[in-house]
Each structure stands twice: as structure tokens, then as C-alpha cells.
């Protein structure tokens, strides 16, 4: 027992100098030329089998007794999820993609022992068909500015020494020497805006929380990321939890708070685990808890796991949930910064916002404000998903165009399909069509287009997407997630969903578009919280840019993209049909008849429009319209 306490006390840092000398001693122990196999340990790569790869490497290293020459680390997510599991061999930074446990022996043989590159595991640039050896040459990474995600690949999230080695907690030592007002000024000057969706100027929020009266104040990290297709908060919290903690400690010092909370969704088990480990380690090192780095400042952080309600990502609902109440939003006529959690001044920021804070303090507000556009500073992390070649996380300076993001970084649309729209900002955002792809991406520009930045979700859709169906999908999602407290949101979204379902089933009426418009106005002006106020965006933006499709559904009872089942007819072109019987075998209802080598026919009364025949026909004889 005494030994344990002694050991703990040895770790504990008592001053900024102590942290600096620890950093030097960590760096002195590490040989930058030593071979290190780093495997991405993010959720996406794990789902693709990264854990098996790690085990295989460990076994192989042990079997050949390479422990001295080679080290292995399981890093955070660098963003190239499409190609996972990712393995980078340092110090040369050779990138192997889609690595399987059975590839491990070859990697050790060839690369580690013989110093050669395993060609077949390299990434091939689809544009030039060239194999790319080094990570930094991959076009997906080359065009990004990974100020935040960049650190993910350098560290093992469960090892605080890794974070300290790359300069971690040096912003904290700097901030502890600054007055609270000076810190707030720096954040204000940086132009940082809230990354969770609202885009509220972070510095202004901090100022009102600093000015708010009260001896008990709270700091909260919102990690209740719930937008469909968004996972950047998860990547940061599980890939670099200390950067979030460091941001929170700086924020707490700035407003005079001694208690912080990380509200993280329970569906992110790895993020919860890594955040928990990070808190424990930070406590051991004296970076959290009493008398942080000998400065006299106390601050501790507790993890609260969310119960799975989307609306709890809204700050007032989140705080209600934190208090142990039903997660329902409240009016925010008095800001949460003045009267939030338990009626105390509360500083709530998104994971990405917190992760930006150490950067601003370390490199200065002026450096930070140079990145981005006039109204939106810094980089933003987007999750690029949907019909896109390179699915993953993309960190770019604000102001880059949608086209650059989707085509240059994202690699465009797979299978030679045409681009149709990109949905930004999660369920409350809007769909942006091709003709607006050259719009620079920042908070204000996206809002002008009837969409929003939101939390950085970006869902790319190809020509086979029905925009009415997309609107219906998002409204359906929000219908399920509305808390039901206020009339416009509960009733209005439900009615919108009924109307949209009718339209997709061919039961739409010409006046439906006006009704949708009216409902949208009631929602935006009348709803209690942002969920309801922005809920109509997917509908409004699709009506605005794809009205033709609505009209085709309503007037002609046709779904141009061939998605809405009730409006699609499958038939067989007798000219093209070779009579191979394939579709007859596949049809689940026996609706297709015909003899061998004779054109087949579909009985429309029996057809359930599942599209199985369309998918299997090798001669493209099945017509969908």
C-alpha cells in the first residue's frame, strides 16, 4: 500500500518545470529512428479487423524476438476509414492499407527485416493508378490540414506519455500563467466558433460565463454526437482524449470552474474507455485534481454516459439529463453560460471546440485566425460518407469548396455514377445540389444555402438517390427523436412525415408543397429548441433545389431515381432478354414467367418491386421506371 502511494506520488508533477523535464526524459528514452509499427485503433479500423492485426503483430514480434528493435502502437484514427485497417511503418511512414492478420508475416519479413516495401498492400491512387508508398503522399491526406487529427496518428490514446511527448499539456502550463481574462481574450481573438452545430463565437460564451456571478461553475464537454453519418467527435475522444481534457482544464481555469463533465453517448464504448483512462492518468500525473501542476488550481472531470436520445446533444436537454432528469430542452432566454446545470453558470462546448483550445493557446490566436475565412476560423473536421470513394474523416481549413472536398479529397463518386447532392449538417441540415458545389464551406455560406455546418456531417448522394425519399428519411429520423414537449415539433414533424410518405407512395396532392412550407414556418418560428427549429431544413432545401422531383412524384406519380417502391415499375425488354431464367430464380414472389431462351415477362400484380431481377440481370434487360 505504502509502496503504491509512493509510486503514485513519484508520477505526480508539481510544477510546469516538472512537466517539461518529464517531456525531455520521455523524448530522451525514445529513438526516433527505431522501427515502430502503428496500427490505427479507431472504431472503424477495429470493425474492419484491426485488433486481429495487432494481435498478429504482437505474436510475430514475440516469435522472432524483435521486441528490442521494433515497437508497436495502436493509435487514434487519422481519418482514412475507407482503407482500414491502416498500418504505418515508422520512421519511414510507409502506409499499408486493408491489412489482414495473414499479411502480418509478410510485412515483418519484407519491410521490418529486409527493408523492402510490400507492393500489394500499398494504396493505389485511382486517378493515376500509381502505387503510393508513403502516407503523406496519399492524395486523401495531402490536401488536408490535419491540425487536430494529425496528432491522433502520433499517439497511443491510452498512454499519456505519448501525448506529453508531442507537446501535450504545454498549453495548460501556459494558460495557468495567464489571467482568466487573458485566456478568454485569446479565444475571442482566435475567432473560434462552436463546432457542435450552432457556430456561436466560443470566446463570447466564455466571457459571459466568466462574468456570470456564482462561486460554483461547471465545464461540460458535449460528446453526444448523434447525427447520422457523423463520427468526428468519436475519433477525437477515442483517438486523443487528452487534447479534450487539456482544453477543458484551460476553459475551467478561465472561468473559475472546479468541476467538469464529459457527456458522451453510451454507444461509443471505446471513447468512454479512453476518456476514462485519460482522466485517471491525468489525475496520477497531477494534471487534474487538486493543485494542478502546483498552481493551486483544482479541477476534476466526471464522465456521464448518455442514454441514447438524440435531443440530449442540445445543450439544455443535455444538462437536464446530467441532472438526472428527462432529457428535454428548456428555453434558453437566459444563456446556459449564466444559468445552466443546476442553475449555475455552465460552459458547454463540443469535443472539437475543446480540442481546438490547446492549439490556440499554444500557437497563439493570431496563428489560428490566419486559417479559414473572414467569419469562420480554423480547420473543421468533416465526416465524408455516403456515395463517396474515400469514406472517412477530413480536416480542412474553413473556406475550402464542397467540390474540392468531395472530388479532390473524397475521390468523387464510386462506380462512375454522377453526383447529385450533398447533405451537410446532419438531420437539421440541407441538401446542396451540383451547381452550388463551388461554394466555400463555412458557417455563414452553408446557412445562406439553406443548410448548415452542424457538427460536420457530410453525406454525399449519387444520381440513384431520390431526394423526396431523402427528405422523408431525415424527417422520419427527427420524428423518432423529437422529445415531444412542444407542439410544433411533436405534431408538425409527424404531419410532415405523413405528407412525405404519401408523396413517396404516389398519394401526394399538388397542395402538399404549400402545406409543407407552412409547417416549416411553424417549426422554425414556434419550436422550443434547435431540433424543431431546424427540422424542416431537409424538406425546404430539397424543395428548393429539387422541386422537379417532388412534382414528378405528385403529378406524374413517378420517382425519377427509381427509389420509391410504389412508383417504380419493373418490366423486361424483350429485345435484350436472352431468356436465361436467372431473374425467374431470383424473384421471391414468382411474378416472372417465361421459357428458356424466350423473353420473360413480369406479372405486375404479383411484383413487389424488390428490384432483385434488376440487380441480377446480366443483359440489362430489366427496365426500371
Amino acid at each position, binding site marked *: 500500500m505504502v509502496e503504491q502511494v509512493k509510486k503514485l506520488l513519484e508520477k505526480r508533477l508539481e510544477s510546469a518545470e516538472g512537466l517539461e523535464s518529464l517531456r525531455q526524459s520521455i523524448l530522451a528514452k525514445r529513438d526516433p529512428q527505431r522501427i515502430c509499427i502503428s496500427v490505427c485503433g479507431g472504431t472503424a479500423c477495429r470493425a474492419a479487423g484491426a485488433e486481429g492485426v495487432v494481435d498478429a503483430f504482437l505474436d510475430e514480434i514475440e516469435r522472432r524476438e524483435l521486441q528490442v528493435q521494433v515497437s508497436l502502437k495502436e493509435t487514434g484514427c487519422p481519418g482514412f476509414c475507407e482503407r482500414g485497417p491502416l498500418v504505418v511503418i515508422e520512421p519511414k511512414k510507409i502506409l499499408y492499407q486493408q491489412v489482414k492478420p495473414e499479411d502480418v508475416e509478410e510485412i515483418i519479413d519484407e519491410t521490418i527485416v529486409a527493408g523492402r516495401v510490400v507492393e500489394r498492400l500499398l494504396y493505389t491512387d485511382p486517378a493515376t493508378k500509381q502505387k503510393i508508398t508513403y502516407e503523406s503522399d496519399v492524395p486523401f491526406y495531402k490536401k488536408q490540414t490535419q491540425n487536430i487529427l494529425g496528432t491522433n496518428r502520433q499517439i497511443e490514446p491510452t498512454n499519456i506519455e505519448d501525448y506529453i511527448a508531442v507537446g501535450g499539456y504545454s498549453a495548460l502550463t501556459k494558460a495557468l500563467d495567464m489571467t482568466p481574462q487573458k485566456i478568454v481574450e485569446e479565444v475571442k481573438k482566435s475567432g473560434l466558433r462552436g463546432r457542435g452545430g450552432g457556430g456561436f463565437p466560443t470566446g463570447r460564451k466564455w466571457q459571459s460565463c466568466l462574468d456570470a456571478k456564482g462561486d460554483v461553475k461547471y465545464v461540460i464537454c458535449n460528446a453526444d454526437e448523434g447525427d447520422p453519418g457523423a463520427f468526428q467527435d468519436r475519433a477525437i475522444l477515442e483517438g486523443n482524449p487528452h487534447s479534450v481534457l487539456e482544453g477543458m482544464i484551460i476553459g475551467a481555469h478561465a472561468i473559475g470552474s472546479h468541476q467538469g463533465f464529459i457527456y458522451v453517448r453510451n454507444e461509443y464504448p471505446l471513447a468512454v474507455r479512453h476518456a476514462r483512462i485519460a482522466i485517471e492518468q491525468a489525475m496520477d500525473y497531477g494534471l487534474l485534481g487538486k493543485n494542478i501542476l502546483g498552481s493551486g488550481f483544482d479541477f476534476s472531470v466526471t464522465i456521464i454516459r448518455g442514454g441514447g436520445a438524440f435531443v440530449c446533444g442540445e445543450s439544455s436537454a443535455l444538462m437536464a439529463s446530467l441532472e438526472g432528469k428527462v432529457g428535454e430542452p428548456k428555453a434558453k432566454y437566459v444563456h446556459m453560460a449564466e444559468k445552466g446545470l443546476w442553475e449555475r453558470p455552465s460552459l458547454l462546448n463540443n469535443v472539437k471546440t475543446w480540442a481546438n483550445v490547446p492549439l490556440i493557446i499554444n500557437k497563439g490566436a493570431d496563428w489560428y485566425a490566419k486559417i479559414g475565412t473572414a467569419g469562420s476560423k480554423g480547420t473543421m473536421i468533416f465526416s465524408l460518407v455516403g456515395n463517396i470513394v474515400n469514406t472517412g474523416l477530413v480536416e480542412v481549413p474553413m473556406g475550402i469548396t464542397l467540390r474540392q472536398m468531395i472530388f479532390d479529397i473524397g475521390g468523387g463518386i464510386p462506380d462512375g455514377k454522377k453526383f447529385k447532392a450533398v447533405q451537410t449538417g446532419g438531420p437539421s441540415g440541407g441538401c446542396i445540389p451540383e451547381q452550388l458545389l463551388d461554394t466555400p464551406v463555412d458557417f455563414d455560406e452553408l446557412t445562406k444555402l439553406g443548410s448548415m455546418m452542424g457538427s460536420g456531417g457530410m453525406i454525399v448522394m449519387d444520381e440513384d438517390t431520390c431526394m423526396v425519399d431523402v427528405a422523408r428519411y431525415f424527417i422520419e429520423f427527427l420524428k*423518432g427523436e423529437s422529445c415531444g414537449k412542444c407542439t410544433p415539433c411533436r405534431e408538425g414533424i409527424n404531419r410532415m412525415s405523413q405528407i412525405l410518405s404519401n408523396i413517396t407512395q404516389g398519394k401526394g396532392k399538388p397542395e402538399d408543397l404549400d402545406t409543407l412550407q407552412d409547417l416549416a414556418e411553424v417549426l422554425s418560428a414556434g419550436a422550443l429548441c434547435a431540433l424543431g427549429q431546424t427540422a424542416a431544413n431537409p424538406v425546404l432545401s430539397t424543395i428548393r433545389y429539387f422541386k422537379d422531383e417532388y412534382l414528378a412524384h405528385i403529378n406524374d406519380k413517378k420517382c425519377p431515381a427509381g427509389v420509391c417502391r410504389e412508383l417504380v415499375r419493373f418490366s423486361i425488354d424483350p429485345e435484350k432478354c436472352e431468356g436465361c431464367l436467372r431473374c425467374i430464380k431470383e424473384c421471391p414472389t414468382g411474378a416472372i414467367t417465361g421459357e428458356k431462351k424466350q423473353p420473360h415477362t413480369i406479372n405486375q400484380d404479383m411484383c413487389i418491386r424488390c428490384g432483385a431481377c434488376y440487380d441480377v440481370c446480366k443483359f440489362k434487360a430489366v427496365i426500371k421506371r
Partner: protein
Amino acid sequence: MAKVWIDGETSIEVEHAEGIDIVHLTVDDKEIAVSAGKTILEAVERAPGIGNIPALCHHPAVKPYGACRICTVEVSEDGGNRFKFVAACLYPVKEGLIVKTQTEKIKKLRKGIIELLLARCPNVKRIQELAEEYGVEKPRFVLGDQDCILCGLCVRACQEIIGKSAISLVNRGIYKEVAAPFYAYELSGDCIGCGDCAFVCPTGAIKMGDDGHPILPKVKIPYAEIEAMMKKETVSS
């Protein structure tokens, strides 16, 4: 000296009284004065004849909730340059606040909310009256047959005034409803039969039964069904 309206017809000249925290605000072009800390709705209720703010989920005996949204008004904090929509039952009065309760936008918004409520509860008298006042004829939606508008007054009265919490709002979104806690078949012994919930209910969805206990609106998913659903899920998984 300033002219302050105390109701629709009468105004008085007042001097700012020292030591009393009074806030002046303009409601539909008439300046009124109230003590600080009140909401717009409370201020307007104290000045009969000025402004017209309907409310369904509001009751002076319980804390404001902001659910029905029918009390939405337009306010400006910058002397009339920019207006925004706020719920009058929640918005705290501020010096110099300009409140508009009857603009075309407001009327249209209330009309929209009433249409939604009427579609949910076509047989409720209070909603029918509001529909008539705001010119809502027939909702454009499929009609429901509910009586409860989920204003939460019953639940709040039971919790805040009686201190019992014998009923609560359960579920979310369109599945939200007033029920005994945990969807129990019957009200628990916590219900003292005071009738408070039936008294505050603006739509008559809760009535007192012969046994001296309130009869709640019929729940959409009774507990028995949930149990059956859960059993089915356990069997299939």
C-alpha cells in the same frame, strides 16, 4: 415623468420610484410597467385590454413550461430594429423591450399551431374556440381522436403543488402521453384523489371518476402490450 398604461383605456403619469425594481416595456405600442423578474405573459396578464396572448400550457400556480407555443410573440431588444419569436410564458421582461402580440406573422404562426392541435384533438372545446378565433376551419391533416394536448399541467400540478408525482409524461415524440409511472395499469397509492390534475386540465382530458380518482386519457401503448412486445423480442433474439 412617463406615461404608463395600466389597462387598455387608462394611463397614468409615473415617476421612477426609487428602490423598486420596475421594468418598462412596450406591448402593442403601449408602454406598461411591471416589477422585474416577471415574464411577458405575466406582465400582459396584469394589464387587461393590452395585448392578446393565448396560452394553453400556462397556469399561474405552476412554473412556466413553454410546451404549447401558442403564446409566441415577437420581441425586439434593440428598440425595434430586429424582432424575434419568443414564448411569452418564459421570456423575462427587460427594460425597453418591445413586444408585439398581434402581428400577421404571429397570427399565422398561432393559426398553424392551432391547426396542428385541432387535427390532434378535433373534439376539444377549448381548441375549437381558438380555431374559430384564429380562423382555422378544417385541418389539412388526417384527424386524430385525442383529448390530451400534452401541456403537462396535470403532471406539473401533481408534482409542484401536491408534491406527489403520481402521474408523469412518459415516452417521447408522438408517443408521449400522460400515464401512471412505468405504464402501470392503475394509478398507484401515491394518488390522493385531490382532483388537481382534472382541475388544471385545459381540455378536459382528465376527469374525476366515481371512485374519487382521476381517469387519465387512454394510453396508446398499455403496459400489457409492451410486456408482450418485450417477450416477443426475447424469444426471437
